[in-house]
Every structure is written in C-alpha cells, then in structure tokens.
C-alpha cells in the first residue's frame, strides 16, 4: 500500500481518535486486508454461530523486537491464541484483534504486521471478526502491542482436563524446545551463528485436531510451554494434579545451535520460551502411536516422549540428567537473567 494514501508515513494520535483518520486507517489497511463478511459490516461487533461448547482464550503480545527471524508480532499474535484454543481440545474458528500502537510507528511496519496477521489467520483457518485500534503517545507504548482472543468449537471427541491425568500417563513434546526464545535473545544480543536460529512460531491446531480424531479421550491434556518454558509448565502441571512428573534429559528434543546459544548466554533451555511446540499427556497404552502420528506431521517431526506421571515425589518434577543423576526441575522464579561468569 502506498503510504501517501493515508497522508502520512507514521501512525499518529489522530489515527486513534475515532474520527476520519481512524476510519481512513481502518478502511485502507484493516478492512482492505481482511476483507471478510464479518469485518465488512464495520459494526461494533460480530455475530457468529457455534455448534456445542465454545473454547475461548485470550493473550496479549508485547514482544520486542517486533520483527524477528522466523516471524513477527502479527504472526505470533495469531498463532499464540490459535494454539491456546487448540490446547483446550477445540477447533479455532474466530479471533478478535486489538492493537495498541505507539505514536510514530511507521505505517509500512503497521501494514506489514497486519498482513502477517492475515497470512497466519489464513494458514490457521480462522477469521478475524472484530477488533479495535488505539494509539498512545510516544513513550507510552513499545511500538505496538496486540491482543487476540480466540473462539473455537470443542472437538466432539475431546476430553481435555488435568483431572483426567493418571499415574503412568506419558508426557510427549512435539518438537525442539527453546527455539523461539533463543531466536529473540540471539537477535537482541546481536549474536551470529553459522546458521541463524529462527523462531518456530506456527499454528498447531490441525495437528491437534488430527490427534483428537484418532485418539479422542485417551489424550488427557494439551499444554503449550510459552513463557517460562517447558520446566515451568511441567512444574505447574505437577502441582495442579498433585502427582509427580519424571522426565529424562536425554529425551528432550533440543537442537544443537539452540543448545550452543543457551550455553553462550548462560540460559537453561528448559526455561526458555517456546512458540510452535506443545505437550501432550496421554494414556500409556497409546503413547507410542501418538508419537508416531505426531512425527508423521511436519509440525511434529521431532516429537519425543520425555517422561511420565508418577506417584513418587508428588508436586515435583524430577529429571534424570544426561549422566544418570537426578535433579528437581523447579518453576521459573522471576526472569532468567544472564550470568556473570
């Protein structure tokens, strides 16, 4: 889009004022990009039909930098919420989309992000049906924040609940961990590796749907280990179900470059954020079949069964180290900080 169509090359306070400038921004960028029957009504909200139970999930995205290797904040904002809805055992259908833009953001950047949202939404099979755009003064935001709320139909065979988890259930991870977090950190720290680490942000809803089709209620829980990493999610689960979790370090899928980046920056990959990865806790009897099914999908090709639920050490996650020792995996407290030496 030629930015002069909007009369300016940056977003300013007028664009959030609700007047003609706002309308101009919406018409020329938002409505033009999405062009779906819901948004085209240009109403305060949209009315949609659902069959059965609805899963709803919301998330806000404040990442910096807003453009990174492997994606941008727009793509993240769709994939993150689509995946959260999928984690509920539901098929995502609709998203709301709210922007808070800092005065001074380049219109070209805003357009790029909106286009990324559109592409990610198309890939996930969801439609943006309502939204909002606000502009805040320079210094009161960080270029752009996005909130998305996702709505999905619960899969007819799904029975996703931590209450369903039993002793002996297996814990499966769908792919390499720490990819997204290290992509961001490497870019922030200006590190260059022989081949660049890219964020693994992607939508996993179709894979989840296939798994539910095949295995139904033998899948007891899905979770995606975003902020806080794999360790934090497993710790939460162990506490919530009042049972123990035991995992094996050598089974945790971790790509070489990411491992190296973690070593250089003094970070533990277990606590680094993930985006295109999820955990499935499944009945022991189907674990092998679930792993095979996931590996046959592009988005699960590095799936690994990393451990199981146990009646030993309730509320705690214990990891067997590479050399056969044992350690507790505790939840992240505060932020992971780069170390002195």
């Amino acid at each position, binding site marked *: 889009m030629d930015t002069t169509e909007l009369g300016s090359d940056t977003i300013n306070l007028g664009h959030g004022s609700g007047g003609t400038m706002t309308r101009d921004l919406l018409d020329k960028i938002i409505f033009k990009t999405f062009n779906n029957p819901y948004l085209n009504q240009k109403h305060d909200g949209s009315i949609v039909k659902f069959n059965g139970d609805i899963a709803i999930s919301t998330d806000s995205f404040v990442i910096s930098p807003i453009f990174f290797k492997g994606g941008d904040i727009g793509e993240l904002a769709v994939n993150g919420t689509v995946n959260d809805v999928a984690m509920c055992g539901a098929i995502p259908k609709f998203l709301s989309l709210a922007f808070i833009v800092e005065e001074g953001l380049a219109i070209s950047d805003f357009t790029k992000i909106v286009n990324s949202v559109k592409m990610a939404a198309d890939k996930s099979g969801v439609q943006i049906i309502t939204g909002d755009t606000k502009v805040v003064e320079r210094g009161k935001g960080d270029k752009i924040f996005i909130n998305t709320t996702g709505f999905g139909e619960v899969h007819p065979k799904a029975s996703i609940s931590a209450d369903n988890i039993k002793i002996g259930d297996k814990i499966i991870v769908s792919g390499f961990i720490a990819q997204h977090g290290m992509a961001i950190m490497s870019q922030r720290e200006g590190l260059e590796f022989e081949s660049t680490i890219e964020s693994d942000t992607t939508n996993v809803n179709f894979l989840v749907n296939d798994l539910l089709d095949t295995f139904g209620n033998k899948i007891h829980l899905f979770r995606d280990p975003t902020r806080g990493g794999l360790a934090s999610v497993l710790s939460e689960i162990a506490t919530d179900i009042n049972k123990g979790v035991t995992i094996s370090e050598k089974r945790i899928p971790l790509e070489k470059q990411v491992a190296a980046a973690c070593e250089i920056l003094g970070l533990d990959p277990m606590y680094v954020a993930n985006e295109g990865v999820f955990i499935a806790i499944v009945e022991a009897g189907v674990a092998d079949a679930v792993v095979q099914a996931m590996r046959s999908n592009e988005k699960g090709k590095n799936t690994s069964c990393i451990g199981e639920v146990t009646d030993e*050490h309730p509320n705690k996650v214990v990891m067997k180290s590479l*050399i056969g020792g*044992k*350690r*507790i995996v505790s939840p992240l407290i*505060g932020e992971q900080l780069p170390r*002195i030496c």
Partner: protein
Amino acid sequence: MKYLSEYRNLEATKKYLDEIHKITTRNWNVMEICGGQTHSLVKNGILDLLPEKVRMIHGPGCPVCVTPLNLIDKAIELLENNVIVCSFGDMIRVPGSKRSLLEAKASGGDLRILYSPIEAVSIAKENPDKEVVFFAVGFETTAPANALSVLHAEKEGITNYSILASHVLVPPAMEAILDDELCNIDAFLGAGHVCAIMGMQEYYPLVKKYEIPIVITGFEPLDMVQGIYMAVKQLEEGRHALENQYARVVKEHGNKAAINVIGKVFEVGDREWRGIGEIPNSGYVIREAYRKYDAEAKFGIGNIKVPENSSCIAGEILRGIKKPNQCNQFGKTCTPSNPLGAPMVSSEGACAAYFHFSDNLISS
C-alpha cells in the same frame, strides 16, 4: 572437539564414578571453590552418585554471594541519582539493605542488564549528558573485561563512564578458609575459569604450606567427576600436589594478555567479603592513575556501612561450615522469591542450587 557433548558423556562419567567408588576407603571432605561447579554438581545429580565417604563442601566462589551488601546499596543510590547503572544479570535480584536493583529499576531507575562491560562504554558514548556506571563484580575471571572497559573509555576520551568495582581473589579466600579453626577440608577443586585467566602459579605455595591437594577443575559433569577422582586419588595415596584437570582451557601461566590488562588498571588491596568479613590483600582496587574511572571516588559514595540480615548464615555457607539445608530459614522464610541473602538469589549460590535442584525426598 565438541566440549559440550563429550564432557557430558554418560559412559565416561560413569567410569570415573565407578573408579571413585573403587578407590575410596576413608571419609574425605572436598571443597569445590566455584559456584558454577556447585551448580554443576547439584544440577547433574552428581552428589547422590558419589560414595557417601566423599563429602562435597561448597566454597565461596560465587561473586554475587560475596559482594558486600553496602555495594548494592551504593549502586541503588546511583540509580536514584539519575545515573545509568549497568550490571550483569544475576546481581540485580540480590536484596540490598532495603531493596534490590531490580526493585529500584521498577521504581524508575535506569538499570541496564549487559553481557559485557564494553557495552556500558558504548552506552556512555551514546548518552554524553548522563553518567554511566558498570557494576564490576566478580573474581579474577571478569576482571580483564572490566579493566579493558576502563582502558577503552580512556582511549575514546569518554569521561562519563566509571566502574563500581568489587573484585575478589581466590587464593586469599582459600587461605582464609584453611586458616579457619573450623575448617575440615581435605582437598580443593580449583576454580577452572579463574585459573584460565591467572594460571596455576599462585596455587603451588598453598599446596606446599597447607599440604593439601588442589585439582584445578572444569564445570561439565565429566570434568567434575574427573576432578573429584584426581583429588580423592591423591588423598588415598597420601600425596598433595597441584594438578590440572581442566588442561584444555587452563595453562600453567594463564592468559598473559588478560593478566597484563588487569595489572594496568587494578592493584591488589584489602577487600570485604560478604559473610566472611575483611580479608587483607584479597581483592582488586583501582590504581591511582585510573581513579577517575572509580565510581566510589567519583561519586563520593565511599563509606556506607550496612548491617546484614541477622538470620542469614551466608558466611557459614560460603566457608563450607554448613550446608544450605542445615539453615533454619532455608525454604521457609528464605526462598529465591524472598531471599534473605545472596546465596539464595545468585544463579551460582549454593542455597539457590539446593533449592532449585535438590530435595531431601530424592536424595539417598
């Protein structure tokens, strides 16, 4: 040579563990100096794989843990006076007498977390109207980079940069521990990265004076068990010598360029160690010629004396007299989110290691 996978190799590590079990006939107390080594022991579950007769005592090699409380207060005072304070990550959560650097940041202080002090010099260049201070904490390991940052600032003619320095040295700490009447240590695992800088020379006199084995050791699980094996072997054979397990990184005379740079900017002086007290000639002070890069002199924040939290037993932990789980507050009133002292907050602290990785339910 990959260094990561090879030194985390299960078979090789098992072999050394088996050997340790074979040769150990008596009770031995071995102190690993460096906090990173403590973490490796606990994180890899090595403590439970050693024979009961080999007791690992955790040493004071955690730079964050031994940084005096008043230094944190000084850094916070700078933040409150519009100075840009730059720090390594793990310092920022350590509580000062009232609050931590992180809390001061949340109240509006301009605190930047950096990997390298050279970045702090760049920040000073980009902000000529503000003062920039790098919180230069560490053992000998981080001294060269901190010294380089001062030389770099001097070369660039940057006058709004200074360092708030608290460097401590390993050999005097070892002597202080060995001279302590409560000391019951039979052998040391020397701090691998400190020796990568300083070399091995300073440790021969200690071996001779105290007749104690010192094995300079790395950090990966195989390094740790190989170092412990070498120490126990000396003990069982009644020998005491300086040995270098970490030969792939540590050379006899260390890193000469680094030592030169340290010597340009710093000289040895008395230093206070949190939890231990003042040890003479145990740290680096900035030389007269570089006094204008010394934040304490520049800002006149010299003499703040601050009392420690009386219930924190960090001193006994750092001297290896008590273990973290022998502290009454451990895990109760003292946790990583509510630390009473530095060893619970620092990623190298023994208390943090025990809290995060270990648990009485899974040991023995």
